């Protein structure tokens, strides 16, 4: 089982498959779709195999592959997974399959390029989650930009060029400082291995600069207020599949980066500046929640809702530092980190589902404006039922996955400071307000106009996508234990790392 390189397969199968699709040419779009789907399904199967073969009782890296990569700077092609990575890898391959099915009919020009972009993107994202060499991580982290740049730029809406340039340059700018920070660390440690960087003693000043270099890179990616402004633009202009991948996985890479870099490499600086991140997270949770309330564009509304929900992730991550260092409560810290991770996975499913729903409406009406809809439930009952389910999950209804993560984070922050918990709890009200109001305006009420009256309900293919997400949302909401257990050992180890000062 350890003998063959499963992780390399997960990374390179979609990339090579994507290139094959690209080479197949324009003439056979249907062939490109089926072949792309087959590759994505094979990757999903491989990732499930990874999950099945993963020993969640151990915090050690598993499925490790290590080959020399660039000898001159002792960088290794070093892949490995822990519980956190496995969860995100499965999420990635699951979402990619549904994205390809979702785009079956809505993308008609240059299909082979579309499919290829998503497959290459999938491989690179999986690479980010299993790279254990900082340089390799950075390479995957940055290389993702090009396929996404093209996805938004070719198949996006009217202002796609503006949005995609903004997306690219924002992210590129954020990460260049991380690169310099990583080079600094390499010169000090003589190694790019994440485990060596985590063990490297660093002075308080060094940690501070590195912390901010990493913070900038990942805060742009998450995105945190106030560097979030690229996200609404990118989401609104991106094609449905692009929005789904962006919300479901690319944002998670920011949170994942915090767990892999800020916390283990600069624990003391993270503790010192946890207040800052917590404050920004609360701004995201509360203020951006209110911003979402006034949006007229459905995609923009969901984009702001994403920022708000990702605020919970950063809150959970950084509250754990306060808990472990100041309150001396490692159990609560573990809860906070677990909450953040569950929230990441759950938000991946929910936001992907919400964007898919908007995409389904857009395919029929060619409008994303709330005002153009009303009474959709009358003409699309099945769709309405699923949309309401996702809306409930988005507002954190118990029984859905949205509740689990938020509840865990609020519980953890209550142990740090009840006022923080109160602040975070506001989102349950605001989140419910903007989501349910959206549902009311779009789904319920009388049929608003002739276009809505002519809507056809979802067909089997669209139902497959939405039901797929619905099953995931409900399964995670009703029985989150497998996910929590999967990550438990890794998170416990992370908490141990946080306990030790590096100065």
């Amino acid at each position, binding site marked *: 089982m350890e003998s063959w390189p499963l992780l390399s397969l997960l990374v390179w199968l979609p990339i090579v498959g994507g290139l094959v699709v690209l080479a197949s040419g324009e003439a056979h779009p249907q062939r490109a779709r089926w072949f792309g789907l087959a590759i994505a399904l094979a990757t999903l199967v491989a990732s499930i195999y990874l999950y099945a073969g993963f020993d969640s009782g151990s915090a050690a890296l598993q499925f490790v592959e290590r080959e020399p990569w660039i000898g001159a700077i002792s960088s290794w092609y070093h892949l490995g997974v822990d519980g956190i990575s496995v969860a995100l890898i499965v999420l990635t391959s699951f979402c990619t399959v549904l994205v390809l099915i979702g785009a079956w009919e809505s993308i008609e020009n240059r299909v082979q390029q579309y499919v290829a972009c998503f497959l290459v993107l999938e491989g690179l994202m999986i690479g980010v989650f299993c790279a254990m060499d900082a340089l390799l991580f950075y390479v995957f982290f940055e290389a993702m*930009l090009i396929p996404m740049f093209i996805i938004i730029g070719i198949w996006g809406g009217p202002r796609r060029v503006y949005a995609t340039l903004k997306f690219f340059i924002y992210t590129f700018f954020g990460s260049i*400082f991380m*690169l310099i920070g990583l080079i600094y660390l390499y010169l000090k440690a003589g190694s790019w291995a994440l485990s060596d960087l985590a063990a490297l003693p660093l002075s308080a000043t060094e940690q501070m600069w590195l912390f901010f270099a990493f913070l900038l890179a990942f805060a742009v990616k998450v995105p945190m207020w106030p560097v979030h402004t690229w996200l609404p633009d990118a989401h609104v202009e991106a094609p449905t599949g692009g929005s789904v991948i962006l919300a479901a996985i690319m944002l998670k890479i920011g949170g994942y980066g915090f767990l892999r870099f800020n916390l283990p490499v600069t624990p003391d600086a993270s503790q010192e500046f946890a207040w800052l991140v917590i404050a920004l997270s609360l701004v995201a949770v509360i203020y951006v929640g209110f911003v979402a309330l006034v949006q007229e564009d459905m995609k923009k509304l969901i984009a702001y809702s994403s920022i708000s929900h990702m605020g919970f992730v950063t809150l959970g991550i950084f509250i754990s530092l306060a808990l472990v260092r100041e309150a001396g409560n490692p159990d609560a810290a573990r809860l906070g980190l677990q909450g953040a991770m569950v929230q990441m996975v759950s938000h991946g499913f929910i936001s992907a589902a919400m964007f898919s729903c908007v995409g389904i409406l857009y395919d029929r009406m060619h409008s994303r404006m709330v005002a153009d809809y009303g009474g959709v439930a009358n003409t699309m009952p099945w769709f309405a039922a699923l949309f309401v389910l996702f809306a409930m999950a988005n507002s954190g209804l118990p029984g859905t996955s949205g509740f689990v993560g938020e509840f865990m984070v609020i519980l953890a922050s209550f142990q740090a400071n009840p006022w923080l918990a109160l602040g975070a709890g506001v989102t349950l009200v605001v989140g419910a307000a903007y989501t349910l109001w959206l549902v009311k305006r779009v789904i319920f009420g009388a049929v608003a106009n002739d276009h809505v009256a002519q809507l056809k309900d979802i067909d089997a293919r669209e139902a497959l996508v939405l039901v797929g997400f619905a099953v995931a949302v409900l399964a995670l909401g009703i029985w989150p234990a497998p996910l929590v257990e999967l990550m438990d050992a890794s998170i416990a180890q992370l908490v141990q790392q946080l306990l030790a000062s590096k100065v």
Partner: protein
Amino acid sequence: MTLTWKELIPLTPEVFLLGSLLALLLVDLFIKQPRRGLTHFLAIAILVLTAIMTARPHPDVQTAFGGMFVRDGMSDLLKLGILITTAVVFVYAKPYLKPRGLFQGEFYVLCLSGVLGMMLMVSAGNLIVVYLGLELLALSSYALVALNRDSKLSSESAMKYFVLGALASGMLLYGISMLYGATGTLDLAGIHGVAAVAYHDQRLLLLFGLVFVIVGLGFKFGAAPFHMWLPDVYHGSPTAVTLFIASAPKIAAFGMAYRILEGALSSLLTDWQGMLAILALLSLAIGNIVAIVQTNLKRMLAYSTISHVGFLFLGLLAGSREGYAAAMFYALTYAITTAAAFGMIVLLSRADFEAEEIEDFRGLNQRNSWYAGMMLMVMASLAGVPIWIGFIAKLAVLQAAVTDFLWLAIAAGVFAVIGSFYYLRVIKAMYFDAPASIEPLALPNDVPFRFVLSVNCLLLLGLGLASGPLWAWCLAAIPA
């Protein structure tokens, strides 16, 4: 001192190149225009044979003419880079020259003599040899720029190039004479030995000499503020000539800078570090910011060259073995990247149409998605996006500079982000804009050209994925 045949052994590639280029000049006289392809073939064969003679499995240090000529691992590697790049340039030049009536033997002979000059520059053990090589390259280049004598633009830029180039050569020569005055020798190793001692007594003279030498170097590299000739020359020259002067000479310029700065003046390290730091910062700033407003692709690539020179200096000014290896890596990879970029311009050009505006690349993806993908790779590599070689090269110079010049490394990073914008604009034109006409691209009917261009572009990706061997080779070429 009597000259024996044995002494010429280290010069074998140069002697062969000189002999065969003279032979080519003669042979070409008897080749009629329809058979001109033979000259093309012979020129490439000469380069390949010279490259074979240059390659040695275990390079040791050999000298000739009492140390005036040095052959070591570094010179071998740089010469291979120069020869291979020029061979690629020849392949790309043919489909451009042919329909314009420029497909003459002169192009090849001038380029080959330029190559000879470059080979001398990287093997120089004496300031006179440095100058000799430099002038051989420069004079060939002046003539090449004016190759299309009916074009006003070409003549104007050749004139500009010549006047400014002569000025820079004068500066360099003046600096050399001061170094000679301060140390009493022109031998690079000799200066190296004396300079450390002379630094106390002759500091002022040495520093003055250094300033003039740096000005000369800066001009040859095209570093700001000595960059003014570069956009005009790139723009005004026939694309085939731009191809040549934009690629291999950057490798030679690195060799020259290494020979002078490290070989002779390493005891003045702290002095020239500061000067190069200023040049690097200015080049990064001017190159990247001015490139944003260019609409002509050749001019944009000229400003992009200026910014890349800034990056290259970042490696040079570290003054460490890693830094030189990084700068060398940068020069080599930049040469092949820029050759691919101009090769793409040639690909899109027609007999009556120069595809040198960014506008001309609009909608290329719809007309020919393969070459759009190739151009995407070139632009992504120039922008320094990972998995392409441009990123690894930037990483190499940044990691060399971070220790002592953290501020400069950060500034370089910021300018790299600014710079990414104009490369993205080309990608945007190709992928997101609608083409002027949707008819498929009429490709030049030159199979070797198309094949080499595709291989060259794919190499940017391949080297990015497996940069280890080349980097290790660069590191091994720099003596510890």
